[in-house]
Each structure stands twice: as C-alpha cells, then as structure tokens.
C-alpha cells in the first residue's frame, strides 16, 4: 500500500505503469515543441527533415529566426518589463496585506480579507473586462470634465501591470502570510519593549524573517505575469506581451520560430525550477 508496507508486484507495477503513462502525457507537449524547434522544415509538423538552427538565427525571405524576429523579441522584452513591475507592485502590496491581516485587528477585517482573496475565484477574463470597463469610464469622465487625456486609463502598458497586479497581490499575500503565521510574535514584542517604534520593529525584525518568502513570492508573481493571457488580452495597447503575440501567431501565422521561443521558455523555466529545488534542499 505504502512504502513501509509490503506490496504485491502487481500493485507496484500497475502503479508504475500508470505513472509512466501520466508523465509521458505531461512532458510530451514540452518535448515535442522543443525538439521541433530544430527541424529543418517550414512547417510546424513532422516529418523530421534534419537538424537546423535556422529557427533561432536565420534571416532570409522564408525563414525568420527568433533572434532576427524583432516583433517577437520586442514582445519578450515587454513581457519581462510587465512581469518585473507587476511582481514588484504585487510583492509590496501583498506583503503589506499579509502584515495587515495577521497583525492588526479592525472593523470590517473579515470583509476586507474576503475581498483580498476573491481574485482566486474570479475568472481572469472577468477581471480583465471589468478593469477595462472601469478604466474607460474613469478616463471618459476625466476627459469630459477636465479635458485631460490620461494614458493609464486607456489600454496600455501600465493598465496591464495594474490588471495583473489585482490578482498577483493575492498570491503574494498568501505566500508571505503562510510564513508570517510561523513568526514568533515575542521577537516583535521584545523590539517594542526595547523602545523600537512599531514600524522599526516591522522593518528590522519581521521583514528580515519574511525575506525568503518575499523573494519566493516575487518569483511566483513574475512567472504568473509572464504567462498570463486571459486578463492581459483586454488591457494591452499597441504593444503585445509574449503570450498575446504567441496566441495571434499560433492562430494565424505559425512557423517553427514559435517552437524556438517555446524551447527558450522551457529551458529557462527548467533552470529556475532546478535552482529552486537545489536551494530548498540546502536548507
């Protein structure tokens, strides 16, 4: 049944067989996209026509490799920029929210906490359209009454950051809050009794304790932003992020350059995941 009990070979092998099937199902799309990035063909399908690096480096009439494809490179750059600002904003506000809900008592705390958790169960498309609607309404109001045209209220880079932040902060709050629950409150009390102000106690005692969780939450928020499509699609202006660019190409104009960019993403994520495992083992 479990490790410590004797198991019949049938039980063990049928479990192993199912696990092999499952993990094949799991890694198959990743391996397929990665391998076909090196296929010497103009189509994203079999047969295998030999090895090439064209889809990374070529710049000819019928083949545009990843590193020559300016639109694609630009969308990667925008995604990184978006993810950085979204993660920064989410980490700051999410950490503040974790401190607020763990350490303070106030009226309507339950209601506020419920609202802070609600992005977990609001589909991303709803957050996208509702933020688009309200920013358009706010922008229209300001333009009518003050004659100002503010870019933030139109679909634009910063609106994407804000839209993704609306749920990113929730994940940070939960990750940081989980570590805060393990915090020994007497340490903060000790700082207070040594005449530290409460802000000093939080800054010098609580935040250093939370640091690993805060860094982890930043990474998680970054990755959430980097792969987000459902909310982003409604809020982008003229500059698409990588998932939006990938979507329109998959839909209308797919060449193996998409495999090349997928290959880069898979390798990057694998490195992040392995590093993470390595560091968590060391502790």
């Amino acid at each position: 049944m479990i490790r410590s009990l004797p198991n019949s070979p049938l039980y063990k092998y049928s479990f192993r067989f199912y696990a092999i099937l499952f993990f094949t199902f799991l890694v198959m799309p990743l391996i397929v996209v990665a391998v076909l990035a090196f296929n010497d063909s103009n189509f994203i399908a079999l047969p295998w026509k030999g090895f090439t690096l064209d889809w990374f480096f070529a710049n000819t009439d019928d083949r545009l490799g990843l590193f020559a494809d300016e639109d694609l490179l630009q969308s990667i750059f925008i995604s990184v920029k978006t993810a950085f600002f979204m993660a920064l904003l989410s980490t700051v506000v999410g950490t503040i929210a974790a401190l607020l809900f763990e350490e303070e008592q106030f009226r309507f705390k339950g209601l506020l906490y419920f609202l802070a958790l609600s992005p977990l169960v609001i589909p991303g498309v709803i957050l996208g359209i509702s933020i688009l609607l309200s920013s358009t309404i706010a922008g229209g109001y300001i333009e009518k009454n003050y004659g100002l045209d503010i870019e933030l209220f139109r679909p634009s880079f910063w609106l994407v950051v804000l839209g993704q932040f609306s749920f990113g902060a929730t994940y940070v709050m939960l990750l940081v809050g989980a570590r805060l629950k393990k915090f020994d409150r007497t340490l903060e009390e000790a700082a207070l009794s040594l005449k530290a102000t409460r802000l000093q106690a939080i800054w010098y005692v609580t935040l250093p304790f939370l640091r690993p969780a805060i860094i982890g939450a930043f990474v998680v928020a970054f990755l959430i932003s980097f792969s987000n499509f459902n909310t982003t699609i409604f809020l982008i202006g003229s500059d698409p992020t990588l998932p939006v660019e990938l979507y329109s190409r998959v839909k209308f104009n797919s060449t193996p350059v998409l495999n090349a960019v997928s290959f880069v993403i898979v390798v990057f994520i694998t490195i992040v995941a392995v590093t993470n495992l390595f560091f968590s083992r060391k502790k």
Partner: protein
Amino acid sequence: MEKKQFNITFYLLVIPVLLWLVLLIVLPHIDLLISSFKADNDMGEKVFSFANYMAFFEDSIYWRTFINTALYAIGVTILAFVVTFPIAFYLTKVVSNKYASFLTLLLLIPLWVGELVTIYGWMIILGDHGIINEFLKYIGLIEKPIPLLYTDLSMTIGLLYMSMLFMIVPIMSTLESLDDSLIEAASDLGASKWDIFTKIIIPYSMPGITSGSIIVFMLVIGDYVAPNILGGKSSLWFTEQIYNEFLSTFNWNEGAAFGFLLLFLSSAIVWIALRLSGQKLERVGQ
C-alpha cells in the same frame, strides 16, 4: 504615545490595501454590473435596460453555450481528479523519496511554462501531420490521418492538461500530512486496499480535493486559449462569446452582461462546493 504609533502603522498598512481592493476589485465589478444594464435606445443613447440579459435568454445559442461550458467545466474537474489522484498518492506515499522530489519538480515545469506553449504543443501532437497521426501511419495502422485536432477530444485534452496540475498540488500537500501509521494500522487490522482508500485516504484528503476542484473548475470555465485553439468550429464556449463582444463586435454592454452571468455561475458553484465541504475560501489558495 503608544496608541498614536499604533495608528500610524495601521494606516500605512491599510491604505495601500484599500486602494488595491477598492480601485481594482470593487469599483470595476460595480462598473461591470452597471454596464450590463445599459443598452442603446433608438436615439443611440445609453439607457437603463434589461436588453443584454434578454438577449442571453432569448437567443438559444447563448444559454446553450453557457450550460455546455458549465457542464464541460464540471466534467473536466472530475476527470482531473480521477487522473491525478493516483499520481498524488503515488508521489507522496508509494514511490521512493529519491524519485519523488524529481517527479514533483517535473510536475511544476508545465505549470510555469504557461498555457500557450503547452497548448501549442498539443496542437502539434494532434494535428493531421502531428506526432500521433504520423506514428499510426508509420506502423501501418491507418492510411489517412484521423481528425484529432479541432474536436471535442482535443479540447478536452487541452483543458485537462492546463488545469490538472492545480488539482494535484493541493491534494499532495494534504496527503503529505497524512500519518502513514494510520494506513499501517488499518492494514494490520485486515482492512482491504479499497477500504483504506475510501475510508481513510479519500476522506483525509478532502480539503485538498475541494481546493483543487475549485481552482480547476475556475480555470476551465474561464479559459479561452484551449477551446479557441484546440476546439472545433462548433465548440460552444462561453468565454469565447465574451471575447467576441469585447474584441470583435465591440458590444461591451452585452459582454458585461455575459461576464456578470459567468461570474454569477462560477461564484454560485464555488459557494456550493465550499458549503458542502465546510471549507473556507482562505484554504483554496494554499
């Protein structure tokens, strides 16, 4: 003095949180609700109206799509549970620890790579000249490719693939806290494997199953990429209607009404799930 310092800290903490929740969660949803009750009158002015909701109930394509999407989401949630539960158990309790951490890592990679890349991968696998068809042709089982892509099957695979890892992770974290000695004791006392599964393991992992189910359901019902890329022309998917209203036909008011219906449906089902399982929303995120 003490009192005053406490207040400063409190306001420093509460103001950013209020700004976040009021400006980006509460107000947008109020705007969504108000917009959904507005429509053009004969003069082209926006007036209060039930027209958007009437359109939903009068045109059978809309509510049929709505019901189809909800049923699909429930089906995929059940499927995700059936497919991943044995793996969650295998990784936490059966396989040796040496492999467990490697395999768990493997689980997380597709999760972070993102939906677009993996759905694109499935498109290549299932296509007419994809891996499966070429393989079947190679071994001589078929001569002409069988249509796999743009069917309900490919859509289901895509939806299952993009959501199932959100089922397995919470189940694994509850199973990790299940004390092995409970299972050993039951086994020593002669309980069958079936009894141990249904009377100990499943009940114990219920909180994880509930969290996983809620997240999977939400992801599937709100998904656009998998149905749109892998689904057929005739696949009825409600989020696609919302996308069309906002991005193609620019009828935002009707789109807002559809959005609100989707939000209502998903909240109702999540609420029922939380009620039935007696679980708190807070646990869902962990």
